[in-house]
């Protein structure tokens, strides 16, 4: 049933692994963010721990924007987005395919940049850290589920990147703010009882964004 979605995912991953364009660019970009913040601000370790979670998400989100733009530039290039509108396939399937590829590429980049983050901010590795996995997963999915549909909207317009930012930021910011809070709890070793309800809230937003986008994508493909 999701055959077309998987076909789209497969071709996207194939192209990404061939060029490594997105992941590499995202990785270098994030590295720069870490370097700049690490060496420009002389702050105590305590303060650093305060701002590190925010920095991590800034890196994720800015790199994620780049990944989204790449992924849809690829579809726009030879009229492939129009080809998608001509395919005998539900818009929802196309959405799922693009969502999966954007999300997987972003998760791979995050897995590659995370060790750098640990080293730069001198964080202690512990089992507690595993709690970051659902946090990053939920925050990333929230970002990509919205980002995928908004990229498809923005790709038709002249000022694609500007429009994407203007649409995406206001909608995705609650998710990012909560993800920063959750990440802060784990990194500072202070996972309070508020952790799980907040994580659940991010998850709930993910489900809402994903479901709405899935249903609406048909309308977006027509221009």
């Amino acid at each position, binding site marked *: 049933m999701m055959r077309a979605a998987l076909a789209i995912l497969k071709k996207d991953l194939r192209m990404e692994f061939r060029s490594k364009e997105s992941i590499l660019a995202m990785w270098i970009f994030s590295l720069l963010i870490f370097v700049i913040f690490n060496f420009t601000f002389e702050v105590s370790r305590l303060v650093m721990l305060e701002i590190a979670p925010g920095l991590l998400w800034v890196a994720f989100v800015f790199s994620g924007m780049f990944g989204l733009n790449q992924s849809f530039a*690829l579809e726009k290039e030879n009229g492939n987005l129009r080809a998608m509108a001509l395919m*005998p*396939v539900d818009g929802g399937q196309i959405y799922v395919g693009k969502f999966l590829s954007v999300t997987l590429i972003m998760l791979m980049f995050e897995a590659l940049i995370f060790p750098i983050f640990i080293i730069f901010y001198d964080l202690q590795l512990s089992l507690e850290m595993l709690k970051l996995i659902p946090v990053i997963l939920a925050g990333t999915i929230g970002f990509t589920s919205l980002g995928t549909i908004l990229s498809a909207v923005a790709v038709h317009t002249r000022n694609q990147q500007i429009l994407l930012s203007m649409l995406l930021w206001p909608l995705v910011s609650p998710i990012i703010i909560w993800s920063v809070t959750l990440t802060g709890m784990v990194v500072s070793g202070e996972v309070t009882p508020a952790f799980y309800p907040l994580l659940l809230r991010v998850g709930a937003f993910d489900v809402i964004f994903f479901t709405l986008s899935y249903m609406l994508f048909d309308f977006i493909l027509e221009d």
Partner: protein
Amino acid sequence: MSVPALQVDNVSKDFGRIIALRSVNLSVNPGEFVSILGRNGAGKTTLLNIISGVSRPSEGSVLLFGTDPSDHDNKAKLAVISHEMFLYGNLTAVENLEYYAKIYELADATQRIQEVLNDVELTHRRFDLVSTYSRGMTQRLTIARALLHQPALLLLDEPFTGLDQHAIGMLISLLKSQKELGRTIILTTHDLHTAQELSDRYVVIAKHRIVKDGVMAETSPDVLRSEFFSAIGGEDDS
């Protein structure tokens, strides 16, 4: 009477202040080969876009095989060749075709891919990235992609663009065999000679309207030429 493959009813299209089409009516029977002729900006591409469903008419309606163009059944029967290639430069010819084969749920994908690559004489370059192809090779692959799922209705918008003499001959004979298979074909071209050679019928668009709808067999090349030029008139369409 069978259901027409294509029924365009009173279609008009505006792009803001720009008028592209005015009250266009066109009915095409299954198996018919129709050439759409007209000057730059006459509205040929706009009409094909409305037929394929990628663009909505401002007024009027389109039916494919008696049903809405957006039905999956219709989309599965349709192929479009336009100035857009619908190909990924960072994939090889085979990878591009494999992708489309999956989208169109082809059972005999490997064999079909071999056949169409052979049809457009690209077999020797099938494992090269499309971004390394020349313009004409890319156009040939575009043709292969369009024929891959054995479409019942082909919409071809200047498909000869970028092809050399040999490849033009190749496409002409491909289109002839498509016609023999009973496919319905709608072609736009600026080459009256090719239109004459291939089509059963020709339609001239001028000033956003169909101004001539004629049977090709009854029209000699000279008559076609003079009819075409008198139909389009002296003024610019755009």
